[in-house]
Each structure stands twice: as C-alpha cells, then as structure tokens.
C-alpha cells in the first residue's frame, strides 16, 4: 500500500515537472511562432493583429516584398563582410597573443597580459564617444571595415584569455621537441601549434560571429549611409518606417534570423559553450 502511494507521488511529481518544462517551452516559443505565423499572412488579414488566428495565407509573397523593400541582400552582405573581418581578425590576433602568453617567457609578460584584459572589464559604452573621433581621424567613420576593426580591438581581451588557457593545456614537450628537431619558431607555430588549434576556434568563432551579427550600437554610432547598414540596423530602420505592416515586419525579422538559426542548429553546442565561456570567464 505504502509502496503504491510512493509510486503515485513520484508519478505526480514527474507530471508536474514536465508540465513546468513544457510551459517554459511554450513561453520561449510564443514570440517566434508569432513572427512565423504573421509572416505568412496577407496584408489584409494581418491588420486584424498578430494575435488573431490567420485566415488568409500568403506564404512567400511577404518575403519577396520585404526582401526587395528592405534591400536585405545588400544588408546581409554588409553584415557578412563585417562579421568575416571581425572573426578572422580576432582569431589571428588572439591566437598569436594567446600562444605568446602561454608558451614564451619574456620580461613584462604578466603586466601586458593584465593590461589587455582591462578591455574585458570596461564596457564598450565607456569608450564609444572618443572612439567616434578616433575612427574619424583614421578615415574609418561611416565604414564597415572601421567597425570590424574596432570590434577586434574591443573584443580581443576575452578572446586572448580563451586562447591562452587553451594553449596552456597543450604540452610543452611537443613544442620543445619540434625546436630540438631544428624547427624555427615560425615553423613550430605553423606546423605544430596551429594544426592543434582548431577545436578552440569553433567556440571563439561562434561567439565573435554572433556578437558581430547582432551588433546594433556601434553601427548606429558610426555608420550614416543607409547602403552601409548591417542587418540589425537596417531592420530597425525598416521597423520605424513600417510600424503597422505586421506581415512585412515579420518577414523581415524572419529573414534576419534565419541565417543565425541555421548556424545555431548546426553548431549549437559551440554556441552554448562559447557564450557560457564568455559569461564564466568574463
């Protein structure tokens, strides 16, 4: 008898637990479902509001219209360019510096390391005003390259820290034996160290790429020509111009999030690990 009631208790607990989990799931997905459904409605149907059930469907029309009206092909290329520049730059800078901090001995090493880490503590918002004039004096204002480069400079602290701790985990003996075999330092780096670095790169690539793809503040501050807008800024401008065209806005939002959804589904553990590392170490 007692056995049985214990069993029922456990069953009830489990049902409650799954109920909570499913409720949280619904809570998470409602906004996404709203965007998706709204993007499939006709203009006339969407006027009734995003939280009515669709009656007239227009599966691809809104996407074509939003794509052309919002000029998303151009903005996607802008974002892509900025992202590639930031990601490649950060990888190069952080890999070299992380390797240096982890595997070389020279005077002033710790001091330089801690100075570079200051960039992790002081937020971009604290230096964004002078940065405007720094970019201006270098001719990098209103330039996607300018934003890509500044994001390397402001984001490298974290990346260097991550790469350094990765390289510390690589045994010195591999490097030593390559040196004794007569490899120059450059040969050691290219032939021995870099081929082992790929696993550390995935998380770093994902976190840097996402930061770049979603960046709104820097483009708002330093980009003035509409044809140079990256996707979030373009979407923001599009929203301001079409506040009540729900179906077009929704299609625009879908267009802007589909690339990141695809990448997320492909590399979700890297996403989670990368952002987690950012929190735990930052």
């Amino acid at each position, binding site marked *: 008898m007692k056995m049985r009631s214990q069993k029922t208790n456990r069953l009830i607990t489990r049902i409650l637990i799954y109920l909570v*989990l499913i409720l949280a799931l619904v809570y998470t997905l409602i906004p996404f479902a709203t965007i998706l459904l709204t993007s499939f409605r006709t203009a006339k149907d969407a006027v009734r509001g995003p939280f009515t059930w669709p009656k007239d469907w227009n599966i691809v029309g809104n996407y074509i219209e939003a794509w052309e009206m919002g000029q998303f092909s151009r903005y996607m290329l802008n974002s892509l360019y900025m992202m590639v520049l930031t990601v490649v730059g950060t990888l190069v800078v952080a890999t070299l510096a992380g390797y240096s901090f982890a595997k070389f001995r020279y005077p002033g090493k710790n001091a330089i390391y801690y100075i570079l880490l200051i960039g992790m503590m002081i937020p971009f918002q604290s230096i964004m005003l002078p940065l405007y004039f720094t970019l201006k004096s270098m001719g990098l204002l209103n330039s996607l390259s300018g934003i890509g480069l500044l994001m390397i400079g402001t984001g490298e602290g974290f990346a260097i820290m991550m790469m350094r701790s990765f390289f510390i985990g690589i045994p010195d003996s591999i490097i030593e034996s390559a040196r004794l075999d007569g490899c120059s330092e450059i040969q050691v780096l290219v032939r021995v160290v870099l081929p082992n670095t790929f696993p550390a790169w995935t998380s770093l690539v994902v976190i840097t790429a996402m930061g770049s793809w979603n960046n709104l503040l820097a483009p708002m501050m330093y980009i003035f020509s509409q044809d140079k807008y990256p996707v979030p800024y373009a979407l923001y401008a599009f929203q301001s111009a079409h506040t009540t065209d729900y179906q077009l806005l929704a299609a625009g939002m879908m267009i802007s999030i589909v690339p990141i959804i695809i990448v997320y589904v492909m590399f979700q553990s890297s996403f989670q690990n990368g952002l987690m590392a950012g929190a735990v170490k930052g």
Partner: protein
Amino acid sequence: MRKKSLYRNQIIMGYVLLIPAVLFFAVFFGYSLVQAIHYSMLDWDGVTKAAFVGLGNYRELFTDPVFWKAFVNNIFYTIGILAFGVLPGLALAYILSRPYIKGRTLFRSVYFFPRIISAVVYGAVWKWMYDPRNGLLRLIINLFGGDGGGFAITGNVKTAMLGITITGGWTYFGFCMVIFIAAFMGTNMELEEAAKLDGANNWQTFHRVTLPQIRPVINMVLVYTVIDCFKVYDLVLVMTSGGPNDATQIMTYYIYKQAFTFNRFGYGSAAAIVLGIFMVAFTVIYNATLGKEEL
C-alpha cells in the same frame, strides 16, 4: 651557446606575436579610454573649441535627476533579471539535471534560443505582445476579467521598466539554465542520496547539499549579470527609446543621448567614465568579498 640563442629567439618571438594584439588594443581601446577621461573634463560639443571644466561635468552629473533615474533603472533592471532570468534559469537547470528527465537536449536548445537573436527582433515582437490595442497581454488580462485594452505596460511611467525587464528575462533564463545545468551535472549525486537517507527532504537537500556545490558558478553568473544589465541598450532603444518621460532611461542610452542628441560630448563622456568605474569597482569588490571562496 645554442641554448642561449634559442632563449633570445624566444624572447623576440614572444614579443613579435603580441604586436597585433597590442596594436589593436592601443589604437581602439587604450587611446579611446585615455581620451574618454580627457573629454570628461571638457565642455565640448564635438565640433567647436573645447573648454576645460575640470570636474564640473561630474558635479553636474551627480545633481542631474535623469542620470540618477537612469542609474536606478539599471538597478531595477538588474534585480528584475535576477527574478525573471537567473532564478527561473536555476530552477529549470535543477529540474533538467535530474537523471530521469527525457528530452533534455531539446529543452535546453530551445530555452537557449532567445539569447542568440538580436533585440531588434525580439524587442519588436514583445512590443506587439504588449500592445494594448491587439496584443497578447491584452488578451490574457481580458481573459481574467481585467481591462486589457486600458493597460499599456510600456506606455505607462510606472510599469514601463517592468515590461522591459520581463522581456529581458525572457532572453536570459535559458542562457542561465545552460550555465547552471553544466554545474548541476558536475555535482556529487551520492551526497544527495546520503542526505535523503538521513531524512532530509527535497528542499533541504537542494538548499544544503546541492546548492553549496555550485556556489562558485552562481557567483560568476551574478557578476556577469550585473555587468550585462548595466550594458543593456538595444532592448530599451527598440521598445521605448527611454520613454515615456524618461521612465526607462538607462545609463547607456543616457550617454548616447547626451552626445548625439544634445551634442554634449564632454558631459556624456563623464557619464561613460562613471559607468566604467562602477563596473570595475563592482567586479573587484564582489570578487574580494562575497565571491572570495572561488579564488
């Protein structure tokens, strides 16, 4: 002889590898930081000649009610994120880390999802949800017999910040869950079993046995959360642009507005420096006191 030159090579190589990092840091970060401190002591519109005012900007800043409102709003947002983001994240992580849960990966991936989307997207959808004319909140309030059409959560001075915070929490709980679940999976389940055999109930076991084991992770999440909450910008811009009547004014938006709306680069820089000092001070003090055990 050979060994000595090897060592010298290493010193040179060590420095050479640092060149790009130091260069990028110096040009885009270090120089700007020094300049920010410099600007914060100027009365300057960004174009005409600047006048040196010493600490005048700081003095004005600390007597500006809007600046304090922004600061208090950031604190409100932080507390709200702890309630709507960190706590639910902790609870869900605990549930999901129980060994008998099926579909753990699915739940985890979906909860995490909002974190990867731009605020321009989720901020806009949440604005729809909050819309008193045809939003979801209206439907829910009406369902319980209230007047949903008369309640604009982000349009009301009293509730606007709450509305933003709920949205912020929605993007944050899954992220916290992913961090906490890794911590819970690393805890010693045998200790829990032992506590239960000794007659501890579920809450006691959780509170006394499981939670202390993930204390360092909780500390790290708290520090990160405070810093993240003081950096918030996109969400406020998209949902309310600081309004109504400065009710959702926050530090970052305040800095932006001073410089680019009112052309007060010196004054805005002073606010930016205060924000930076606050964050560094918070991190250092927290780690030296409450977060000390982890070090």
